[in-house]
């Protein structure tokens, strides 16, 4: 019998809700079947912990006595430039931003030791960052210079607003050339020396709701240890990606724009990363609860790593230039997780950038939150664009 979000929330309130993680539900469905499991289980929690490059932080800084207009001026936090094209006291610090003096890839491969994500991680850990700002001065905002150590307490607001998180699926990156290359998928050794992937597979949020039936605008999610929200479809959201019979896409596909209060987050769930030769990024924990409204939703959340496929892509020529073979094959997440896959007859060891151990922690944490009555589910305010919505994107 179909359930509603209201009915599930009533069960959360009364402490009677039945919740499992997207990993635990696999065996339950195997034992009990879809129908029985759909009747007795109310929520399945997903989780992921992975670099999510398109992330950043909006902050609003408390004004000093002599007021200052940052908009149109310049601002840096620990030397990392923040975007100052907003109003008097608002800044946006991108996770990938680098100090002006960083050598970048001048001596390839660059180390990218410190950037926007590191500032964000330090703020979350309770440290202060040095704000250095200049302004042109106005009658109402006369100050032209500001140098001050600021921590979360000095900020009226600090929230992550990430334009693209939680890619529904992702490439398996390899290198066909005879030299090692440094990419956002890590160091790829020459001649198919390794294959790197980046997804929590069966635990990953959008793999468990492939057509975005329950995840939409306004969906409450776990983000970085806080309760945040899906703000919009993410950039490059591409619902028209090719799909398998089970509905899951076998290429990039859907993405989420996510917003959450940094002041509620914890370094346990948010970490800066440095990719040698590529740059700085932010690793973030995201967990999305999936309400089991009916048997179809139970079928969706019971997918296993063996049911999910990712494309193998050459990052030496095809990815950067679009020339050559588009795809070297497809591989299941079960194969990727075995430690080696076969490409062109060769056994290639696999590595991952998404932590499955952490993904499990996220899904379990969210499950406990719901069971304890501290996390209520939401009805999306509007759906994310689905297949054939005319939202095909090119990444």
């Amino acid at each position, binding site marked *: 019998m179909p359930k509603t979000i209201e009915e599930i929330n009533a069960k959360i309130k009364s402490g009677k809700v039945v919740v499992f993680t997207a990993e635990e539900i696999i065996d339950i469905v195997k034992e009990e079947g879809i129908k029985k499991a759909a009747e007795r289980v109310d929520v399945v929690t997903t989780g992921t912990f992975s670099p999510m490059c398109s992330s950043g932080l909006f902050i609003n800084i408390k004004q000093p006595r002599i007021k200052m207009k940052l908009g149109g001026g310049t601002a840096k936090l620990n030397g990392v430039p923040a975007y100052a094209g907003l109003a008097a006291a608002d800044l946006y610090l991108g996770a990938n931003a680098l100090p002006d003096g960083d050598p970048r890839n001048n001596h390839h*491969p660059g180390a990218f030791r410190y950037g926007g994500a590191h500032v964000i991680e330090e703020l979350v850990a309770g440290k202060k960052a040095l704000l250095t700002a200049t302004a042109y001065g106005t009658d109402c905002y006369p100050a032209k210079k500001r140098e001050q150590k600021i921590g979360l307490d000095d900020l009226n607001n600090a929230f992550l607003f990430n334009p693209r998180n939680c890619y529904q699926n992702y490439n398996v990156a390899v290198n066909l050339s005879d030299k090692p290359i440094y990419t956002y998928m890590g*160091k790829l050794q020459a001649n198919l020396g390794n*294959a790197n992937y980046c997804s929590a597979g069966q635990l990953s949020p959008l793999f468990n709701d492939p057509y975005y039936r329950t995840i939409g605008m306004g969906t409450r999610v776990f983000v970085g240890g806080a309760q945040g929200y899906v703000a919009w479809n993410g950039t490059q959201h591409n619902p028209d990606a090719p799909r398998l019979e089970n509905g899951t896409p076998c290429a990039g596909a859907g993405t989420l724009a996510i917003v959450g209060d940094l002041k509620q987050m914890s370094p346990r769930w948010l970490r800066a990363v440095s990719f040698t030769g590529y740059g700085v990024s932010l690793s973030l924990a995201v967990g999305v609860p999936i309400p089991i409204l009916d048997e179809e939703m139970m079928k969706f959340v019971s997918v296993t790593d063996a049911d999910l496929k990712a494309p193998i892509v050459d990052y030496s020529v095809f990815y950067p230039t679009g020339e050559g073979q588009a795809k070297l094959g497809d591989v299941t997440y079960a194969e990727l997780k*075995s430690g080696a896959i076969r490409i062109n007859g060769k056994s290639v060891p*696999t590595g991952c950038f998404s932590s499955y151990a952490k993904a499990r922690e996220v899904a379990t944490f969210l499950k406990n939150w719901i069971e304890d009555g501290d996390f209520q589910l939401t009805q999306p305010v509007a759906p994310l664009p689905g297949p054939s919505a005319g939202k095909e994107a090119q990444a």
Partner: protein
Amino acid sequence: MKMKVVFTFPATNVEEPITYHLIKDYDLMVNILRATIDPRKQGRMVVELSGEDSQISRGLNYLERVGVTMEPLAEEVRHLQERCVSCTACVPICPTNALDVDRETWTVSYDAEKCVVCLSCVEVCPYKAVEIFLE
């Protein structure tokens, strides 16, 4: 006996085939972990030596005679568990499986015994959870 050592030899001795002699004359197993050898420059080689104790000490005497200085390997890789998130980026890069993942718990662990200090992991770990440690 097995030991990890660093050989440093002056530019004048770069052409002495020391590895050949260690193997042929002293019956030692020489596993070269890293080497920087350029003509007319001081050379440096990190090796793992294994063999009979007496043969090792005879081999080391030979090295001293030909002007190669030897010291125990003072570099180690440290796995900082509080920074590691067990993503497994290091696992396919590590040549000896010193860094490996348990495919049940999905946690990454480090076995110093297996590590040959090639330092490949240092540049691929995005979390800076492995670092070079000088004793």
